């Protein structure tokens, strides 16, 4: 089991490197800024498509942007922009948390050589970004949807099954009884008469 995983991560690594090479080939400045000698500024933007999920209106005020698993936490401005100040050069991880949406974490490389040039890659899809514009991968629905009223849902419920079974017994059994040997039928009827009340066992020829 372990070797399999090792190989998958290796593949991931290779893919990552390929995408990095690709990035270098098409280097596009995203946003850069230098605070001082060795700390830089990362500026990006969160864009949420017009609300598609009912009840999860995209509210910028409740969105958090997190650098390196909690090292810095920042919030969005009304236009969706966010900024991390005083970030050292290196490879960082940016995560966006918005209720109702799933964002891929973003690998951000801040280059020391190119005065804080930023390169970004989505770690989930391994897609590199030309601009640091983060969009949700998918909307999240936290509740199970209730299926609308349907005959099937009634029938599927244990009670529905009971009723269904009774219907089968009531309407299909007499049909089955017609095919029974008249002799046997007669004896059954005899018994029924002696008891006065029809009992389920006497209705079921199969149980005999």
């Amino acid at each position, binding site marked *: 089991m372990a070797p399999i995983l090792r190989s998958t991560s290796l593949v991931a690594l290779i893919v990552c490197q390929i995408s990095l090479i690709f990035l270098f080939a098409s280097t596009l400045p995203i946003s850069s800024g230098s605070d001082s000698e060795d700390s830089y500024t990362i500026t990006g933007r969160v864009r949420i498509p017009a609300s598609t999920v009912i009840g999860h209106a995209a509210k910028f005020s409740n969105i958090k942007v997190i650098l390196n698993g909690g090292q810095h936490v920042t919030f969005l*401005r009304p236009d969706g922009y966010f900024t991390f100040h005083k970030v*050292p050069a290196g490879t960082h991880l940016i995560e966006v948390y918005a209720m109702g949406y799933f964002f891929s974490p973003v690998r951000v490389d801040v280059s020391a050589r190119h005065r804080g040039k930023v390169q970004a890659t989505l770690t989930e899809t391994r897609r590199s970004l030309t601009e640091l514009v983060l969009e949700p991968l998918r909307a999240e629905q936290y509740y199970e949807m*209730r299926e609308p009223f349907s005959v099937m849902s009634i029938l599927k419920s244990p009670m529905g*099954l009971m009723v269904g079974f009774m219907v089968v017994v009531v309407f299909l059994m007499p049909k089955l009884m017609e095919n029974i040997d008249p002799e046997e039928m007669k004896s059954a009827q005899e018994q029924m008469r002696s008891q006065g009340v029809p009992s389920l066992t006497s209705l079921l020829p199969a149980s005999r």
Partner: protein
Amino acid sequence: MAIRVFLTLLLFLSSAILSFALYEDQAGLTDWHQRYIGKVKHAVFHTQKTGRKRVIVSTEENVVASLDLRHGEIFWRHVLGTKDAIDGVGIALGKYVITLSSEGSTLRAWNLPDGQMVWETSLHSAQHSKSLLSVPINLKVDKDYPIIVFGGGYLHAVSAIDGEVLWKKDFTAEGFEVQRVLQPPGSSIIYVLGFINFSEAVVYQIDSKSGEVVAEKSMMFPGGFSGEISSVSSDKVVVLDSTRSILVTIGFIDGDISFQKTPISDLVEDSGKAEILSALLSNMLAVKVNKRTLFVKVGGEGKLEVVDSLSDETAMSDSLPVADDQEAFASVHHEGSKIHLMVKLVNELDNVLLRETIQMDQHRGRVHKVFMNNYIRTDRSNGFRALIVMEDHSLLLLQQGAIVWSREEGLASVTDVTTAELPLGKDGVSVAKVEHTLFEWLKGHVLKLKGSLLLASPEDVVAIQELRVKSSGKNKLTRDHNGFRKLILALTRPGKLFALHTGDGRIVWSMLLKSPSNSQACERPNGISLYQWQVPHHHAMDENPSVLVVGKCGSDSSAPGVLSFVDVYTGKEISSSDIGHSVVQVMPLPFTDSTEQRLHLIADTVGHVHLYPKTSEALSIFQREFQNVYWYTVEADIIRGHVMKGSCSSETADEYCFTTRELWTVVFPSESEKIISTLTRKPNEVVHTQAKVNSDQDLLYKYVSRNLLFVATVSPKGAGEIGSVTPEESSLVVYLIDTITGRILHRLSHQGCQGPVHAVFSENWVVYHYFNLRAHKYEVTVVEIYDQSRAENKNVWKLILGKHNLTAPITSYSRPEVFTKSQSYFFAQSVKTIAVTSTAKGITSKQLLIGTIGDQILALDKRFVDPRRTLNPSQAEKEEGIIPLTDTLPIIPQAYITHSHKVEGLRGIVTAPSKLESTTHVFAYGVDLFYTRLAPSKTYDSLTDDFSYALLLITIVALVAAIYITWVLSEKKELSEKWR
């Protein structure tokens, strides 16, 4: 045959309709969520004539929030990062809330009505220093005065409109620390007063528009200042000197500095160390000397004069301008169980504007802070309201002699949690009269039926929800059959113990820890941890269960500990003791005495352990097991195992004190490994079966040991944050160590990985979460540990002939033959904490509860982290429930047990079993609290809440009717056949 078909059909259908999550209308039925903010540090009122009245607060939990002044509800709230402590808060331009955080280096503006961030500015900071925020109170909006911020050695002026830095001054070179910024109204000159190395006072006059220094004056003060300062007017401040015995009035009229010394002994006879209470009082000063509060009037020439004194401890508010150029301030002091709130005019102390006496709960402690606000009554007189922060961190609004609202903010800083049973009902455990009449009962169920068939109107939905909450009887204060009703005992940082009901989260009782001896040294102990002290079941059924609260006086590790025993049913303290030694580690032992009191060992800093309870019976039990008691300690790169040596009677006469000796040490090479996480199994965890049957009818024996320790180390370079290290420099190594012998059972190294490591240890497996630097993704690894020595017992003949070693006692002294299986997966989120569900008998399959950085809790089935997952599982393996291997663990949104809530500032998740095997209690705490009940494999042992009794009834009625009709029909048919 038909029956068999029907049964299989039923089985198939019932398995097909298994759903994973909650429906929207089920939210809030078994779960509750409470929102808190923490202990308030600053409060700014916003009470304009129009609009909602609110108070903006910032707290010690790094929360900035806007509260409704009428009801205390939260309008909006933001929890900043853990390193982003708030230093100051203010309101600018009447529409923005300004917060200064991160030691004066981050300035943010939030929109007042909805809490949207408007701008954010990062300020220069070069060194650690006190930080200060000064927001101009300009009544004329058209004049734009800048916000003055000092922090990290720089003074900044920032425009309130867009956060642009207008100018900055570098004070780093001379070590100048700003103490006060005064912005006289109507002038563009600001006065900046500060100290250089607390021995020289400097006043700068700076043009607030350009940042130019207009004038600069400095003066040496030979004694040095203590740093406590109080502004008394626009040109005077009063400070304490470094000996805390002389008050120094510093006047800086027109830029000239003058000192005027007044020894405290001149003001009051019994002099001592003084403390300045007030920060901003006009022409007044409040000084605390020897537990007395002195009000000192500051005369025109800096002359000090005692005008009033209060004998008890007092909390003071800043002064507030009221009508006619008068200034008023509020003071609160205690008297028995009452508190007195007084509002006085600064200039005429005899003129008490307001005197109110309020009965206060003893368990709230003393008043820590007072914030005052005034309003104009209908008869044009001044009314006052006061926001007070108590010792237990609770926040109360006082108005017109009553507590208008209160918030239990102590619950935002929970340190330890345990659960306890509720008392039995008087007449046994019975379902009380929840439904009144049969008609109402039927009506309720018909409503429910309508709801489940989606035929209900919106009013019906509301009625159903109400009915569900009310009728479930979940809020009663007695035990129930299923063990769903329980008490959650939460110990908070201020040392208050809360008992919360699992039904609705209300506080059943609360208790503030008291110092047992009422000694001077320890007025109020801090709460550290909580243990089950007495859980009566077999004998001693009449005893109430109790918990042990371990507290500490002071913050350093050698501070003396305090034990408190609390009755769970009543919330009363049974006894408390000052134990006279420090508390490093508390170890519950697996032994109880005849009254079901659990034996505990407490280790202190000297290396001794102390036995509790201090009874001869406990001592005799402990003496019997003396040789079998081991414990371990973890330091930076060493783990030490200890064993009992003997009584420490040679040093002290205490027969419950024992000495220990070191048995083994595991030393990690400090240049390459540093311990970042250690973890053991929960001591009370139940394991149902030791054996695990494979798909190929093979047996695996779990290595279930209570003495396993999981240790994670990283290379010292990788101990920092992500992004500070390259993959080549960092590696993560995990160990499984036996804590009796110090033997390393398993070692696994992850190259190019780093912490933080969050792990969970249950039964025979560990799951841990860490960061993979090469893939730049988070990873989760599972390690399962199996017993090899028992693997030979598979043969049936061996079992029959008794040639197996299953009955041989398991001993930690022998060398275990173990083997492990492990597998790693990617995980797409940062994690704050991981827990695992626990059930009464351990039969139910387990779920991992992952607290994500988004403050949600994800329930992940343990089957997803099974090391036997393969890419293409065989048919047999599929039947066993093995999921095909994927490189990433799935995040299913419906599996968030917190559904649409966030447990802001999540710190921990606690699980506890209920009596029903399928169900487990989950309690998560952080700034918020969240509770829910989980059934990891569905509620297979009970009907769900959704179960529709009405449908069952209708079905039965329909069946009876059908039987009757068919009977009538068959009679008729028979009759007609007879006539034929």
